[in-house]
């Protein structure tokens, strides 16, 4: 049974197909409004989430399907000590596809091995979050009209930010990509990402702490939040949380067609004054996430022979 746990589970060709489907859904929503009629998506969220759960649920409803849901670990049998594998086997009897978020890394893999229906990883701790990357890729594609030849600035928490690692992995499969990695010393991209992805694929990158200095070169600026839940030490979090705050002044030297992205939720790393700037794409990114989730649900249910 095909599941999607990591963005690299999807080939470049499959990503292209998903983006084409998503664009077709945007242009012709009525074509898809009965596509998953009588089918059920189970959203198993063992960790708090607003955007991702609602996005999956909205995606399934817009495909004409239904949703059954667990919205916290406390409200499920996990609180009684049920294993992820047993939960996945049980839910396979009720639903046609699972979207799962879990605080532990690798939980989605365990679920996919036990389930008899497709599992979509909706975030497993700080590890993978492939559907956020799908949202990011569609946003880049729609803003730039192409996936090749651009300089991508990643700014903020590049150490624990799973969306950053997935995006590096995904974009390094295209031609002419350069990365500018902007972070405080303590939150730099882990060495294994640099070694296993960037150096291995000979992708040019620079590391800097200077956001304004890097700004003129960027075609994409991907801001991230310093996540409190990834720190064991509150003092470290407080010290680093306000490292980068994007304001209109800092955009003075930016390109006119820069795309400013953020996986959301933001705390204060992008000033609300930027929301009205036409280069701000983070709410488009949210919408794109729903369309890519629709495309992915369709693909996996088709492959499973369910629709």
């Amino acid at each position, binding site marked *: 049974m095909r599941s999607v746990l990591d963005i690299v589970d999807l080939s470049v060709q499959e990503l292209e197909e998903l983006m084409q489907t998503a664009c077709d859904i945007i242009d012709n929503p009525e074509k898809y409004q009965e596509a998953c009629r009588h089918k059920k998506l189970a959203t198993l969220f063992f960790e708090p989430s607003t955007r991702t759960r609602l996005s999956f649920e909205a995606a399934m409803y817009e495909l004409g399907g239904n949703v059954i849901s667990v919205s916290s670990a406390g409200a499920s049998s996990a609180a009684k000590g049920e*294993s992820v594998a047993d939960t996945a086997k049980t839910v396979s009897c009720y639903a046609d596809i699972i979207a799962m978020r879990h*605080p*532990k*890394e*690798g939980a989605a893999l*365990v679920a996919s091995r036990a389930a008899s229906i497709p599992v979509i990883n909706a975030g*497993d701790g*700080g590890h993978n979050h492939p559907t956020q990357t799908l949202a990011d890729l569609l946003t880049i594609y729609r803003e730039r009209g192409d996936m090749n030849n651009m300089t991508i600035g990643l700014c903020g928490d590049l150490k624990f930010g799973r969306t950053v690692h997935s995006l590096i992995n995904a974009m390094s499969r295209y031609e002419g990509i350069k990365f500018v990695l902007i972070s405080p010393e303590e939150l730099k991209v882990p060495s294994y990402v640099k070694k*296993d992805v960037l150096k291995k694929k000979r992708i040019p990158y620079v590391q800097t702490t200077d956001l304004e200095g890097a700004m003129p070169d960027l075609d994409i600026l991907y801001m991230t939040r310093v996540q409190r839940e990834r720190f064991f030490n509150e003092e470290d979090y407080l010290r680093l949380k306000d490292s980068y705050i994007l304001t209109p002044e800092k955009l003075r030297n930016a390109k006119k067609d820069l795309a400013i992205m953020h996986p959301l939720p933001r705390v204060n790393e992008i000033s609300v004054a930027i929301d009205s700037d036409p280069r701000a794409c983070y709410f488009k990114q949210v919408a794109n996430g729903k369309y890519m989730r629709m495309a992915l649900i369709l693909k996996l249910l088709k492959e499973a022979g369910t629709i």
Partner: protein
Amino acid sequence: MNIDSIQNGIVIDHITAGKGMKLYDLLNLDELDCSIAIIKNVQSKKMGRKDIIKIDADIPVNIDVIGYIDPGATVNIIKNGERAEKMNIRMPSMLTNVIRCKNPRCITTTEQELDHVFKLTDKENKVYRCIYCETKEERII
């Protein structure tokens, strides 16, 4: 120094000097009640010094453990006092329940029944990663 030859059993030879005890531990040889000899720092033309383990019983040994600790070792199966088979060891592509994931965020820390599985991701640098969280294993030797 003389160690009696064995009639039916296993000789793990060409072990890198110093790794014999670690192999003894990870192969759980302490749980066996047959005769076992660990010979350390034996003179070797090829290796300078080496360790050897002789097990006086025809029992299955976990070849993956030997390949993980010391892929240059050889395993000889002895039958009726003669070498019946010589096995060359390679680094295994997967390791199951040999080492444990140390990442506190890994699903294996809360799901006690899960096998601890590591995959060889970089043969050149002998890097194994947990299949669940992709954390690099901490070399135990």
